[in-house]
């Protein structure tokens, strides 16, 4: 395998080096990628067309919102996939061993107190990141991961069960499905309101705002959907991977 790998690497590397000779130099504002009408249209008009100052959010959730829908679906798929792969019938021996493991693990006092204070702050910050994605870096995805991380922190500093008591695996999958439902549902409402799928400007018939503001609100709506899915699935993946799919024990 070593020689095969070396050959593949050398051939590919040589090809890529050969092509890189032809590239525009790094940081050139007039390279085709930076100058062509697609990119400059986004920079110049995204605020005017969606009223979102963060161009990345505007493109992510509106111009290329269909991509982001499937990005969310990818995360959801990964969650379901991991549950499907790791879940197996638990035989009797394992169940007995788990029962003996169940007696309370020693919880470190400093860890417990610190995370007791930290977790709500992290969650608040996550909500801020989700809601403030229009004006600053962040958005549904980043906020969702941070929210998921707060649950993971809870599971790490206490026990997996402590976190699962708050969000069980079934609840996590339900929340994740609801997240996609929010996203695709907003898109579908646009379709029913007379626009194309994910054309948020069609939402103006349902809201007392103009087409541009409707786009801005639509973006916020789908970001919330993304956050639901990502937060729930990040935690579900951690819970499954750390406990080998048994939802007991954990790290």
């Amino acid at each position, binding site marked *: 395998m070593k020689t*095969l790998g070396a050959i593949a*690497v050398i051939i*590919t590397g040589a090809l890529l080096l050969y092509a890189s000779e032809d590239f525009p130099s790094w940081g050139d504002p007039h390279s085709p*990628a*930076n100058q062509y009408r697609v990119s400059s249209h986004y920079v110049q008009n995204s605020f005017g067309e969606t009223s979102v100052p963060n*161009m990345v959010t505007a493109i992510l959730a509106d111009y290329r919102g269909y991509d982001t829908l499937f*990005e969310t679906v990818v995360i959801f798929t990964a969650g379901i996939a991991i549950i499907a792969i*790791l879940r197996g019938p638990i035989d009797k021996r394992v169940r007995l061993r788990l029962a003996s493991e169940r007696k309370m693990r020693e919880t470190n006092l400093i860890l417990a107190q610190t995370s007791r204070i930290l977790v709500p702050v992290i969650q608040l910050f996550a909500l801020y990141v989700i809601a403030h994605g229009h004006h600053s870096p962040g958005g549904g995805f980043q906020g969702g991961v941070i929210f998921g991380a707060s649950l993971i922190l809870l599971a790490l500093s206490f026990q997996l069960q402590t976190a699962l008591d708050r969000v069980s695996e079934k609840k996590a999958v339900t929340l994740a499905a609801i997240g996609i439902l929010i996203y695709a549902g907003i898109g579908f409402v646009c379709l029913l309101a007379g626009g194309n799928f994910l054309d948020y400007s069609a939402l103006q018939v349902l809201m007392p705002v103009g087409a541009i503001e409707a786009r801005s609100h639509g973006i916020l709506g789908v970001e919330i959907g993304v956050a639901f899915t990502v937060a729930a699935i990040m935690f579900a993946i951690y819970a499954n*991977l750390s406990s080998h799919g048994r939802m007991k024990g954990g790290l």
Partner: protein
Amino acid sequence: MTVTEFIVSRLNYWIYIILMMIGLFAMISKKNLIKKLIGMSIFQTAIILFYVSLGVKEGSNIPILEHSVSHAAEHGEIIRAEDYANPLPHVLMLTAIVVGVATLGVGLAIVQKIHKEFGTIEEPEILAKIESGDG
């Protein structure tokens, strides 16, 4: 163009190729399954590095409008494309990062199941177990 300028204009592309080749080599030739997955992640992040590098503009700002600018834009001020980094590669790479972590998660779940079934995560040992009829 001086030598330094030439190097700076190419450096990112070279480094991304090196990183990508490190990842590709690990994916093909490492025997440990977790190592293969780490190699896979390096491979993917190298591609993300390439995309981000191609959106850089000399002397540009982050692609978020400041309050004063967006206010001026409402009054018909034109936003210059050269002032802001190209936001499109950033959007694409957000998606790619997510896909990367999803693939990594599924890969790790499969590794755990392999460990449960075969008791090892070294590829030659697994193949030996399958050969000997244990698989």
